[in-house]
């Protein structure tokens, strides 16, 4: 170690721990080999690995995190040989995949190196990162991750962690693989889908309990179960679709009807669960990763660019620019209308997408009428400008699904309306909360003076 680099390496060690083991030293040397000055190299490395380690639990994981530490018990592990690809330099030939769990949930992981433990062992991973893989979060253990086995851990035992948890619908999220729950069937329909060229029947619908609603798909028949049935589900699989969990009933899932006397003990009935959802504040929607079929209301504070008339590719329905699809090249676009607007109620802000049917209702113009406007005006943004003039500031209620991502909440509306005027009632309630006028209260007793009786 020469004199110039020594102090920098020392600083890095202080900030990041053992440099040799984590491969940070190698990275530092590589930068030096490119004649980067040691000082700049140090800063680069500090920026990349971040001075501050975060210790996370499984439930805190989200897509594209890096530089964190996590401890969990291995619930399952397997290895996959990797097909060597031509032209790619010699790399690891095996990928280890499995499931890691702590008391807050479980997560799939994939590791590029052999792990110092097997099923049931607790491991600690430093410098792990996450990726989104098949719509769910996957914990990745790379070359630069430091993995160690923890022998005395207070984490729950394997049997406890691998037991399927019983959950209310609102608590089901991306960290769940398999759950038990009791819920009521609100909607149900049969359809045929082709899975790998084979026609098969699936049942899809909506489940509800007193906390939330979620979509479900059954890949098996559900004899005797129909809309209104209250069912107990054991070992349902949770899949993520567009950031929304969905309950999958597969052959290993046990589904049974809840007997009438047991149904009385539940906190919901078909009638209560089937009622239109009560409006939420946007703040409450923001506190969840995703919510299915909820109602909220607020002011349109901004109509976003990209609203108005758009063209879609006839093949894939992607939005296209200048009759050119990203995938299908030059195509004859199909006209469509949509509105993207920011709805804000003072407690939260969310981006709401109104598809054509709703856009036509809230704008009060059909696609054809909007097209007339587009052709009659020189400005290509005529419809967008008109939408902004029409919608900005307005008060709207929406019902639909929300998912909370990197850019805040995005909400896809399925219904939209102008809420009923309930101001009278609210004003009366407010006046009650504000209390009587000060003057009407009469002279204040504790005026600071002494009153003689």
């Amino acid at each position, binding site marked *: 170690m020469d004199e110039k680099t020594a102090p920098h390496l020392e600083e890095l060690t202080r900030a990041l721990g053992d440099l040799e083991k984590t491969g940070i030293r190698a990275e530092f040397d590589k930068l030096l080999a490119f004649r980067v000055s040691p000082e700049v190299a140090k800063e680069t490395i500090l920026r990349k690995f971040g001075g501050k380690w975060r210790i996370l639990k499984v439930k805190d994981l989200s897509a594209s995190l890096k530089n964190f530490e996590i401890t969990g018990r291995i619930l399952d592990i397997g290895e996959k040989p990797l097909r060597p690809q031509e032209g790619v330099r010699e790399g690891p030939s095996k990928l280890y995949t499995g499931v890691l769990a702590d008391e807050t949930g479980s997560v799939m992981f994939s590791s590029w190196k052999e792990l110092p433990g097997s099923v049931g062992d607790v491991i600690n991973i430093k410098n792990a990162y996450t990726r989104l893989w098949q719509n769910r979060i996957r914990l990745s253990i790379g070359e630069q991750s430091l993995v160690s086995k923890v022998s005395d851990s207070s984490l729950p035992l394997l049997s406890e962690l691998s037991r399927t948890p019983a959950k209310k619908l609102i608590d089901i999220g991306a960290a769940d693989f398999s759950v038990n729950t009791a819920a009521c069937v609100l909607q149900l329909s049969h359809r045929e889908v082709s899975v790998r060229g084979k026609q098969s029947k699936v049942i899809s619908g909506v489940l509800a309990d007193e906390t939330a609603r979620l979509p479900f798909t059954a890949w098996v028949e559900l004899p005797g179960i129909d809309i209104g049935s209250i069912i107990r589900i054991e070992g349902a699989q949770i899949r993520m679709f567009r950031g929304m969990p969905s309950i999958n009933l597969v052959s290993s899932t046990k589904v049974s009807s809840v007997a009438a006397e047991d149904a009385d003990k539940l906190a919901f009935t078909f009638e209560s669960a089937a009622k239109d959802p009560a409006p939420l504040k946007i703040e409450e929607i923001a506190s969840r990763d995703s919510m299915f079929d909820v109602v909220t209301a607020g002011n349109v504070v901004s109509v976003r660019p990209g609203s108005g008339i758009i063209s879609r590719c006839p093949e894939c329905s992607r939005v296209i620019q200048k009759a050119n699809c990203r995938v299908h090249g030059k195509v004859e676009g199909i006209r469509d209308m949509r509105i993207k607007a920011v709805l804000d109620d*003072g407690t939260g802000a969310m981006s709401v997408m109104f598809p054509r049917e709703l856009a036509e209702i809230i704008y009060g113009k059909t696609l054809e009428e909007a097209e007339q406007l587009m052709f009659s005006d020189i400005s290509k943004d005529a419809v967008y400008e008109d939408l902004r003039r029409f919608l900005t*500031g307005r008060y709207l209620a929406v019902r639909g699904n929300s998912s909370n991502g990197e*850019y805040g909440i995005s909400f896809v509306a399925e219904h939209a309306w102008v809420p009923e005027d309930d101001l009278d009632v609210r004003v009366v309630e*407010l*006046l009650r*909360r504000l209390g009587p006028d000060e003057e009407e209260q009469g002279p204040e007793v504790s005026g600071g003076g002494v009153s003689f009786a």
Partner: protein
Amino acid sequence: MLKREIAKRVFAKEFEACRELDKSERSVSEADSKSPNLLISPLGLILNRVFAVGVLTELDSIGTQNEMWKARIVDPTGAFTVYAGQFQPDASIFFSTVQPPAFIALTGKARIYEPEPGSVFISIRAEEANVVDEEIRNRWVVDTAEQTVDRLEAFSDALASGYRGETLREYLLEKGVSEDLAEGISIALERDSAPREFAKQLRASIREGLRVLSLESEDTAESRVDQKEFVLELLREMGGGKGVDYASFVDAAISRGVPEEVVEEVVRSLLAGGQCYEPKIGIIRLVG
């Protein structure tokens, strides 16, 4: 990536009383140089972006070389001062097309200007604005009143608890107050020596503002509504949209059998409700 900042609902009276919030005062350091310049109200509301609906009563083009608009937007408790310049093209275009008086909805960022200690100017730098109807204005007043009363209640609770600083913050969180407000209230109480006075005044203003709103929906006051309609109609007939001399208006009303005190009362409620205003003393002018 930054999430969109929430547009807070706040009455002009509370907004005007805001002061700059120093980043070092925040216990939850967001460690983010991109975080906006925040203001804090005497009740502990931490804000930057706001959404306001009110009556645009004055609009001036004050730019010399560049476009710059100055507007005044009135709500039941006071008025917002709004600016829009070349860097707010959407709002500038809007202001160049609108004629006061009108009900307008507006989002913008709070700005503070303190040329010398003791004189503080709080204004909104407009982002987007639009003309709206009276119903949206009324709804904004009620929404804003609800959120302000929530704050007032949390604030009184905080005062009554006798706690300060970190203990107070935890106490409020325990009570279900949002993290932002719990922090804001504990900061606000460190600053203000007489916090009760402002809360009392604000309560009175809101109460007054709501009374004016609810007037239209009271069944018992049906004859009053009729008289109001009549006075309003008369005002329109006399060219109220351009401005009418108050004294001659009262004379005209009396000649049609409406007692003077009724005219006075109706005009007062119209003024408070933002349906008309006084561009000059003695002249009344209808909105919209």
